[in-house]
């Protein structure tokens, strides 16, 4: 589908990787992956050296490849996260105090130039963000649909778990509705390439998507109530606890991050 973006991972593709492929990461316990995501978030938040951040990012990239996932798509999916980085770190690269990189550009606001400190900051922020983005995608693309569902049911309080489970289930259904609407409009010569002259068309397509979502929710309630639903969609299945060696890795990574932070960053004496 041309109008559905290839800058945003398609949930259908993500689950297809999780369901249909089999790689080393597919066999890792889902809780372990959640644990590692937490450790990585902590790490990219407290690590303060570019070399370290870049190294961590490199490791995650290698893991992504080892899991048998495609690098080419990853590049497309980086567009939006990179945009977020550019929009925050872009201006800072110029404003950050320090030695200018090359010669300054003179503007009405005064001399403007990327500083070395600014450049480092930019690269650091990119590494921080992309490390977690890459690993989150790795985890999503190697964890089975049902395991994700069970974990959502476990981690979130009622009624958020109920909402999240239905969201997960119906994202696929509604994506197809959206795609059908776009297809039908395209086949009658609709033009999606320019927004302003087609804003009403966009509004109708999106409006129909919302409308169909709401009507589906009305039918869904009927069918759930017909089976006695009262706000409690319990899942009996389970994701087993991680095996000892994986637990070791997770605990180890937290210890390493906290230890490094305590010693190197916050200067806690031993």
């Amino acid at each position, binding site marked *: 589908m041309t*109008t*559905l*973006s290839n*800058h*945003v991972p398609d*949930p259908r593709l*993500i689950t297809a990787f999780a369901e249909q492929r089999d790689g080393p990461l597919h066999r890792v316990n889902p809780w372990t992956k959640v644990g590692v995501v937490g450790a990585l*978030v902590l790490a*990219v*938040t407290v690590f303060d050296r570019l070399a370290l951040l870049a190294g961590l990012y490199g490791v995650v990239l290698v893991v992504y490849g080892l899991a048998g996932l495609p690098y080419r798509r990853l590049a497309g*999916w980086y567009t*939006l996260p990179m945009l*977020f980085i550019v*929009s*925050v770190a872009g*201006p*800072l690269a110029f*404003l*950050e*105090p320090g030695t200018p990189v090359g010669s300054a550009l003179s503007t009405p606001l005064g001399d403007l130039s990327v500083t070395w400190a600014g450049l480092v*900051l930019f690269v*650091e*922020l990119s590494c*921080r963000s992309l*490390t*977690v*983005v890459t690993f989150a995608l790795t*985890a999503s693309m190697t964890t089975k649909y049902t395991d994700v569902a069970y974990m959502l049911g476990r981690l979130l309080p*009622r*009624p*958020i778990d109920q*909402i*999240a*489970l*239905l*969201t997960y*289930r*119906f*994202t696929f259904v*509604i*994506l197809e*509705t959206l795609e059908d609407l776009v297809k039908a409009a395209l086949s009658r010569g609709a033009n999606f390439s320019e*927004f302003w002259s087609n*804003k*009403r068309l*966009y*509004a*109708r397509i999106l409006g*129909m998507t*919302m409308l169909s*979502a*709401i009507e589906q*929710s*009305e039918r*869904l*309630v009927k069918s*759930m*109530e017909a089976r006695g639903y*009262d*706000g409690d969609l319990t899942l009996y299945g389970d994701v087993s606890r991680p095996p000892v060696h994986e637990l070791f890795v997770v605990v180890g990574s937290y210890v390493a991050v906290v230890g490094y932070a305590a010693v190197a960053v916050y200067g806690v004496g031993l």
Partner: protein
Amino acid sequence: MAHIHLGEGSFPLWALVLWTLFGVGLVSAVVYRVRKGGIKTHQIALAGIAAAASFAIFQLNIPVWGGIHMNLTGLVGILAGPLLGALIALVVNIFSAALGHGAVGLLGANTLVNASEAIVAYYAFKTLMGMDWDVFPAGASAATLGLSAGAFLMGAIIVLSGVNGSALPRGDLTIAVAGLVGLNLGVAVIEGILTGFIVQFLASVRPDLVGLVDRDTRDETTGVTA
């Protein structure tokens, strides 16, 4: 181009903890009120599927400024009300983070921003409709207001937190962030106009959805329409 979310690792640890606590606080308050009011099954279904729609719509590339993506948070707020709107914001952020959009550590901050968009849009729409505005201007203004509120809140969050690893004084940071807020305001206007047209369209086929019929039977205690 997109509606900006905060990227992973942007903030120092203390800020991450702080915004997570705020996020948890907001969500807890909402959950408490929802539970106390007794959530009905149709509200759960509506919230679940509306979140799915919001998440699915994000896949559509809207060709302005090289392509923007939107969750229509303002619209979700108008349709689902402030409480469900806040929960939907959380759920959408969780799924987005899993696809590398947004951030796991800043789930709290991003949820605060999106929930504020939904909540402000809802009350703005209600107020404007109460003042007998037409559906299009009311929907467009309400969504623009909601999204702008979100943009300012995000700016404030960044300035308060400071960017991880930056030595820039707060004053200069504010200038840098102003550009970002401005950008988000631009997207807010576009999304607002689009929301206005969508609300207008929905009002023409299902007036009950935007509260144009039986306004009085609306569930005032939870502010939820379904």
